[in-house]
């Protein structure tokens, strides 16, 4: 049984905006003006320095440098460089910390996103939210501790294991809210059954189950009765949760037009806030479609347009409600992208392959630093020159904000005390507020 918190937390909950497919840091946050003069030249071997490549480009004859086609400007007190694709994110520069020096070992989506979410590349370990559910339990009486939301119709697939419980008891797995049909599976009564009918059935069911409990004495029966009651409460609380009609116009407007479309990224951002408000400890939001091997300029423009405003709106909304101070918000993909073009490079068009050695993310709230830029990469956005932060360090830092010493939140499985950060991880002081 975990003995948490280990020290007073600065954050109570997490909203994790996972940008699945790996957004290009070079076109969004990691401004590299010198690339212009090196355009189309081959990436020097000295820079690549033995980095393994994916099978998709390893056989390319050339690795031509592709500068970003997008303009960058500086924003906020930190003077963070942000691409023209992200005007709304630029407006929250003082609330967030941009990290340009994240790195990973994985070079393919499945292992990389699994590492990002569970601390290991292979299936079978609990996800971040499951660890929190296990460590901190639930606050909400009628909602799960850990909810996963998804948006985006194309791009890399997602996997249930990303919000899975691994070897932890399966009640800690994230509850995936659906975009179509019932938000929570089987939430609706069958056709022809009203809430009143259901109440009646549950009352009679409880009578029978109580009788059984009296006869057999198994405490699990009493637990089951309570679970049916919680299910009944969820049938009311979830529709209320997903119904935005009580949101003021100006709030809806902040998230942009698509907030009205269920299952859109904007709608999920707002839903995340509503979940956080109601005591859900970990909201894991996934947006697909960042895997731009080809036609990057066109695709990333669309992708940024769909996500920029809602992401920023979420920060503003939380801040305005006084929730940002104890809510961690993270915006991150699973790795970075190459400075060289995959496939044909023209002035307007290029693609980028997977790159593990550096990628950019941002984070805000919950006791984390604000208005800061952490980490620096070389002129190629290829190698980290300052403050390298591994995923384990990052996770250790998030747990720290939640009042957890990452080396002490463990679960014994197969004879080993497992933890989210495996056998590594250091709290990154510069990220703390």
């Amino acid at each position, binding site marked *: *049984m975990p003995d948490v918190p280990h020290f007073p937390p600065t954050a109570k909950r997490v909203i994790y905006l996972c940008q699945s497919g790996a957004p290009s840091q070079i076109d969004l946050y990691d401004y590299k003006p010198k690339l212009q003069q090196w355009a189309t030249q081959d990436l020097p071997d000295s820079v690549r320095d033995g980095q393994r490549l994916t*099978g*998709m480009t390893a*056989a390319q004859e050339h690795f031509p440098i592709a500068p970003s086609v997008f303009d960058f400007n500086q924003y906020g007190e930190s003077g963070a460089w942000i691409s023209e694709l992200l005007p709304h994110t630029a407006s929250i520069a003082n609330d967030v910390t941009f990290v340009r020096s994240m790195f990973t070992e994985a070079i393919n*989506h*499945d292992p990389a996103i699994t590492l990002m979410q569970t601390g290991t590349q292979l299936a079978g370990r609990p996800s971040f939210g499951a660890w929190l559910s296990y460590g901190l339990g639930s606050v909400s009486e009628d909602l799960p501790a850990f909810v996963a939301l998804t948006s985006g119709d194309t791009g890399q*697939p997602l996997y249930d294991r990303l919000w899975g419980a691994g070897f932890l008891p399966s009640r800690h797995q994230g509850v995936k809210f659906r975009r179509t049909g019932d938000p929570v599976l089987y939430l609706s009564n*069958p056709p022809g059954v009203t809430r009143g009918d259901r109440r009646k059935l549950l009352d009679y069911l409880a009578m029978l189950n109580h*009788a059984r409990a009296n006869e057999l004495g198994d*405490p699990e029966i009493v637990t089951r009765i309570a679970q049916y009651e919680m299910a009944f409460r969820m049938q009311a609380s979830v529709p209320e949760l997903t119904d935005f009609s009580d949101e003021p116009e100006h709030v809806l407007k902040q998230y942009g037009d698509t907030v009205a479309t269920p299952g859109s990224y904007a709608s999920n951002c707002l839903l995340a806030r509503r979940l956080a408000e109601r005591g859900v400890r970990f909201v894991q939001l996934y947006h697909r479609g960042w895997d731009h091997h080809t036609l990057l300029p066109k695709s990333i423009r669309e992708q940024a347009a769909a996500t920029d405003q809602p992401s920023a709106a979420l920060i503003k909304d939380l801040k305005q409600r006084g929730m940002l101070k104890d809510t961690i918000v993270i915006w991150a993909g699973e790795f970075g992208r190459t400075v060289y073009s995959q496939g044909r490079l023209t002035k307007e068009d290029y693609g980028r392959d997977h790159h593990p050695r550096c990628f950019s993310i941002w984070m805000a709230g919950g006791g984390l630093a604000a208005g800061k830029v952490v980490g620096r990469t070389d002129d190629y956005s290829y190698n980290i020159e300052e403050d390298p932060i591994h995923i384990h360090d990052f996770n250790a830092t998030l747990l720290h904000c939640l009042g957890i010493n990452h080396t002490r939140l463990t679960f014994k499985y197969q004879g080993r005390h497992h933890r989210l950060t495996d056998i590594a991880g250091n709290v990154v002081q510069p990220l703390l507020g």
Partner: protein
Amino acid sequence: MFYHRVIQGQQLNLLKTLGQHTRMYRVLTMIGLLCLVHVAQATESDVIDFSRDIRPILADTCYQCHGPDEHTRETDFRLDLQGDVFKDHGSGPLVIPGKPSDSVLLQRLLSPDVEQRMPPVDADRQLSPGQIELIRKWIQQGAPWKQHWAFAPIKKSPLPIADSWIENAIDSFTLSAMHEHGLAPSANASKERLIRRVTLDLTGLPPTQPQVDEFLADSAPDAYVKLIDRLLHDLRYGERQALHWLDVARYADTNGYQTDGERHMWRWRDWVIDSFNKDQSFYDFTVEQLAGDLIPDGTTEQKLATGFNRNHRSNSEGGIVFEEYLVEYAVDRVDTTATVWLGLTMGCARCHEHKYDPITQKEFYQVMAFFNNIPERGRVIKYGNSFPMLKVPTQSMQAEMDQHASNVAKLSDEMTNKLVEIIKRMRQIDAGPHRSAGRLPIINQDLLIQFDWDKTITPQQFQVEGRAVDYDVINTAEVDKELLQTKMIAGDKPQFKSGVFGDALDLNETFQLGGGALIQFPGHQKLTLSTWIRVSGVQSGAIMSMLNPDDQRPQGFSWKLVDNCVEVNFGPRWLDDSVRMKTKLALQGDKWHHIAFTSDGTQMARGMAIYIDGVKQEVEVLLDIFTGTYKTKPTLIFGGEATDNLLQAQIDNTAFYVRDLSHQEIEILSVRETPEQLATLAKLTPRQQAKLLHYYLDQVDAGEGGQLYHDLQLARHRQRLHLATVPTSMVMQENNQRRKTYLLKRGQYDAPGEEVSMGIPVALAAGQKHDMQSRLDLAKWIVSDNNPLTARVIVNRFWAQFFGRGIVVSLENLGVQGDAPTHPELLDWLAADFRENDWNVKRLLRLILTSATYQQDSVVTRKHLDVDVDNVWLSRAPRLRLQAEMIRDQALQASGLLVQRIGGTSARPYQPTGLWKEIASQVYVQGSGVELYRRSMYTFWKRTVPPPTMVTFDAASREYCVLQRSRTNTPLQALALLNEVAFVEAARNLAQQMLKIKAVDDAERLRWGWRQLTARYPSKYELTVLQKMLAASRKQYKTDIESAEKLIAFGESVASTEFRSEELAAFTIVANLILNLDEVINRE
């Protein structure tokens, strides 16, 4: 004092964690138990057992720095070695038996000096005062040292006690333990409870009411034994055992990474069911799954069994490094095999020496060497099975195959007998019944399209030739039935020049021909392309292509000449996902050649061939990693790749077949002379003769010969069609040339160290040879008497099936860090007995189930809660929530919906719309009819998005080996049981049955429905509640018929019209209630 503090801390944690589940009652009693345990430990007279009490503490807290792993070892002594523990390492012996205060070990544990104290203050794992006290007492008691219990030989001890309660050996051990802990056995369960329990345990389904009646009526003393024998012979028994084995074997219907495409392993799954049903000895069950491919003269079934170690996840993601995943696959096999059979966490030794168990890193790789010699690739086929695989017909398929083979053989013999005579007359081709019908190509079976280019660009299509009704095209799904529409890509008109047979199409720089119809050549289909070609001089350019022209990474098919060498490329990505091969021989310029390309659908170069003039060519394989899929836009182009790579040449008689033609058939195609010309030649080469013969038989001979020929062709065609429906299954197989295995530093694929050979860890092979020659040696060692682990591991798991927990609770780990057995002598007795009796599973189960221990009631008393809340000492039967699959299967059976068909392809029952789509952009095609009502173990299992209701009830994801599922109790389970269409539909069908039975009143119907699920009649109180529910629902639906109709229309099965809607709806609600009873989803 110390103990008090410890307990308080644990109380807090318990409260915190369990509080969420409102299990206060249980919490309080657990605290009571904890107090008791600690008090017991504090008593001086208790005998400390090193293996049970001390080693686990040392392992957990001290081995990290003073254990087997030399890399993390901080000193030169090891606390896992007896010699080291009693030795002086400078400041006196660590342990002096009988003298705790003189022992350096204890001094260091208790040192007030922070610098001296162990473990260091900043260490993650600290000792509790209670643990230190245990160590003190152990030293006080003489510090007896014992080998870790699981590595010691299995010892069959005498039965501890006799008592009239005892039914068999098991009870002697459990009763003795109960007595030790102040407990007494519970009374026997009622017959109703017992038959439901044992039927669910053995078949995964509840008993039917006639079965209950029969058992109740049987007052013979052996009624219960007869019941067990009946159940062990029920074919559902095999399904139920297999279900557990599917978790163990991480079996699924998809590959498990990224795209998570479909694979086909159901024949292996059915092998498992069959194995349990025919009571195969666990010895053979083991050897065949681990090394069935290496058994001398092994059967197909034995090879099929090795699918066990191909069930692991496999990756088809585009950019992966092959070598990285080859290592992952081999590691998975080691981990899984070690966990399943040895109960060891061998995977811990992948990156470093095992921290707790005596397994070195090198030994890990020695075990990996057994599993690292498979002719496999790191990136697997995206949709389908990957090599090595085997065609594995079912019994009925095999019978049909034999029938086809014998038909073909018979006709072929007859044909051969007639040939001499036919050859004499085959030159007489002037007249014949088919000549007037237009000339057919000589080889026309499975011919899809031929362009003869005789001043026309309209192809002849052959798939509905009509000369024999059975001549259907195999891959109808891939072929657009519309006529190939042609259009010019460039130039005005096609130009023709004189060809081999009539005219030929002239390809030149200004002209290409594009086809508007979809002819996809996906890699997994069999295929032959054949054409005549004449090049001017030396040329490079495409003969024919189907590429996506706009794509930066050309995907598709291209057949071309490169300096007159013939090259083929196809696949989704030119750079890293295609097959590309080129002949070494170049065509001669200005001369007609016949060229052909065949592919057998394996997407591998070795399944493909290029022929020039009927001779199979030596090729240079430029790339051989075609694993993905592609679809090209509907453009078939002759003479170029889009507007690039134009070729100057003439082509003639260009044909596509949906089959890989045989060498002989290609030889025939390469004969330039027409049959008429051949008929005039005095001397024919073999291939000329073959051509003429085929032509004669096919199109001239109206007599017996022609008939026989056509019969033979048709028989062969049918044989091929049938063979195409025979499934494959992935199997283990050894490389011809042994793949080397290296120790991998830090476990990384790209950091090889020394080369290693096959072997098992030395510590497990005390006094035996640990080097081995093959996987078969390993398999045989695993089930040999020399191995102390496997029999214990296996009986422990079977035990857990029936008691909800193992004798060793950590089913997956019997190593040093695992739990100590609660009944060590019982475990050993069972293991020895199992082994002595030829590893007979049914015998073992019969023993367990006929024990008095198993037959106890499951009522939990106050005393149980006070003394043994977790039922460690088995003084009652456990009450266990049913597994996910059983909950659904029970509902299906009780409602009469269950389709009981053993095995076959996986089924696709109800699933909420869009579940796959929204996270993976894939479409789940829900089945209908039978598919909706098959047992849940047959539900199509997509690993990255598993069936949601199963997961809600704690099913394993099947991504990795799971020996023990959790058993949770959550609101989502309530929602599924109350609302999911499968359960509501089952409720309505149950209601229909309740209404259909002959009954005098409602009460009788309700009693029947209740008993259908619980195997007992309801009490008076329970019946009253049901009646109230019924009355309330009746009232409701009487005034709201529309709602009633909606409710009973839920689900695909059609509601019976025998009953009024409101009546059926009211009973449906009652059935819905019954299906949600806690008693119903538990086995008591």
